[in-house]
């Protein structure tokens, strides 16, 4: 990855695609367009798609190429304001109160304003993202938002539309320059329309054969030409099967790397069967492909590749 150095936002769709390509992220033009618009219009980018298609990677690549700080908020069930926005340093507050007491300070208002000052504030990701940064507004990645609950979503509305948060004891904190926000979702539940309305939405699908081949060759250079073709063709065929969970790009890359480690030059049924666990993560799916079915698919893939030559 490149070293952080501030640089301007892309000025066109082409520039946005090139920006991603700089960090070896080969994106479709559709992603380039939506990314360019999000940056240009200052809107959060909402990326939805199956696991392992490279949603989170976009935020990482953005932060690396633009030289911005990456602030990541991993969502989970029960995520609350104390973990996402701010928390008071209670231990320090208690000590401050004791000290004040020892000094004979009993003015309640004064004590309160002392104790609830920025000195005792612990900033969590969302609040950090609103602060000015020398390298420019940071990239805020809100990862897997579908894992948290509706209550937290509702809270995000204020942050995402006005880029501000309200701390009852202190007042409203507003970002001078809004951060670049990327939200990802695996769609384990529907995110509310009110939140989506504030964002630019994009469904990240599986890449086409050509693009996936380019991705494999860029990310796993050690894999040979023939093997990479076979790997990609096989994965693409797998995605057409009736599987519970189709392999994502991340799985393709893992598999290519695994095969390359094993010094495999070309796919054969035995190797595929041994390494199938890298691609498929459900026992039912693996069982479905065992035996003759696997050989059938592999033969199909090979004959297609031969025909294409």
């Amino acid at each position, binding site marked *: 990855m490149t070293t952080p150095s501030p640089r301007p936002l892309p000025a066109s769709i082409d520039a946005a695609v090139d920006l991603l390509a700089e960090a070896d992220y080969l994106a479709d033009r559709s992603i380039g367009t939506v990314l360019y*618009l999000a940056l240009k219009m200052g809107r959060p980018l909402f990326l939805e798609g199956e696991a392992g298609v490279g949603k989170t990677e976009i935020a990482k690549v953005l932060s690396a190429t633009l030289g911005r700080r990456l602030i990541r908020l991993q969502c989970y069930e*029960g995520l609350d304001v104390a973990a996402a926005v701010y928390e008071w340093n209670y231990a320090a507050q208690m000590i401050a109160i004791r000290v004040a007491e020892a000094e004979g300070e009993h003015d309640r208002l004064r*004590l309160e304003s002392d104790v609830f000052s920025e000195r005792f504030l612990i900033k969590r990701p969302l609040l950090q993202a609103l602060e000015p940064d020398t390298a420019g507004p940071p990239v805020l990645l809100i990862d897997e938002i579908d894992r948290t609950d509706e209550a937290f979503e509702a809270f995000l509305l204020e942050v995402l539309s006005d880029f501000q948060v309200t701390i009852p004891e202190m007042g409203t904190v507003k970002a001078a320059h809004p951060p670049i926000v990327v939200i990802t979702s695996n769609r384990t539940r529907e995110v509310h329309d009110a939140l989506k309305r504030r964002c630019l939405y994009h469904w990240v699908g599986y890449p086409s054969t050509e693009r996936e081949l380019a991705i494999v060759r860029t990310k796993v250079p050690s894999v040979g030409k023939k093997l990479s073709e076979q790997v990609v063709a096989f994965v693409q065929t797998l995605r057409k099967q009736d599987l519970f969970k189709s392999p994502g790009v991340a799985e393709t890359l893992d598999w290519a790397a695994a095969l390359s480690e094993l010094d495999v030059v070309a796919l054969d049924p035995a190797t595929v069967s041994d390494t199938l666990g890298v691609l498929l993560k459900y026992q039912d799916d693996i069982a479905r492909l065992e035996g003759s079915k696997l050989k059938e698919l592999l033969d199909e893939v090979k004959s297609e590749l031969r025909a294409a030559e």
Partner: protein
Amino acid sequence: MAGGEFTPPRSHGRLAENILYFARALRTAGIPVGPGTVLDALEAVQAAGIGTREDFYWTLHAVFVKRHEHSLLFDQAFRIFFRRRGYIDQLMAMLLPQAPPNAPRTPEAGATRVHEALFSGLDDELKREQEIEIDTRLTVSDREVLQRKDFAQMTNAEIAAAKKAIQRLILPLAEVRTRRFKPHPRGHLIDVRRTLRSSLKGGGDFIDLRFVGPKTKPPPVVALLDISGSMTQYSRIFLHFLHALTDARKRVSTFLFGTRLTNVTRALRERDPDDALAACSASVPDWSGGTRIASSLHAFNKLWARRVLGQGAIVLLITDGLERDADDVLAFEIDRLHRSCQRLIWLNPLLRFEGFEARARGIRTMLPHVDEFRPIHNLDSMATLVAALGPGGSRAADPKLWLQKVA
């Protein structure tokens, strides 16, 4: 149409006009597009500049599409609309095949009710009789009946009865613990934030401990309702029930299945039951057709389970279980469904027969995989169901009892 009066700024010329018309076309096609989004679209198009057709496509896509399902609609609308200008009428006609301009007018939802409200009392007796008397239809036809059945034409007596049932049918499902906390006088954790605040009130001389305990909330409910021919008499009443349930609680998803699976959650969100049922009816192609439980469950497991069964969901499976080809596939799918939810409750109207025995193959295949097996055929049995559904329900619902009876 809402937003129709909106006039675009003059400076954008024909483009703004076109985008406005396009937005209206999208709205007609079923993508919710508000005036704010139209302004966003104008801004986006200006930001991106008019480059290639592809860029233009993805620019509008970025703004107008907020759900993956809408991508397809958008794609069609875009292709038809921007092939040549001025094809709006054609577009609308193509997107709305069910409403040709001079088609015979179908009775409006609720028309029967208005009629009845005016001429009530004449044939009340008659209607009450046909209310919930059921004939047994064991014919499981494989033919998909692609008919639109306007079940908004419900009679007053039926609606009144259903509503009565629904009132009693507020499901007292036990609440599940969430990972959140709420203030609790005898909680198990100290709430430092509140403790500190209340201590400050006294100037900090003594520490006034406050506690939090776990917060509970009703789990999401997912209903899978069989609408095949043998279930016709119940599906209507049940849709009413599910509508009331959707109205009262937040997280209810409803799916209908006959030969295929349809998600009608959105349709049921309509406030008025008439509108809701009409919307349902419009979105279901296989009303009163055959039933394929295994493939419907398969579709549900594959496409929806991971999206709606989170956070301890309870599944209500409403079917008679008369599956033509009950085999390992059915067992596999029902088992998977059982494993992915917190509680699987099978509501079967066939249980109305005194001497019901779990003999049918489909029923025998599915029974071992459900947590509860309950009757659901008339208002009385609905009431007993509700009474039993609370925490600590009766053992009569244990599916094992039914299996033992036959064995």
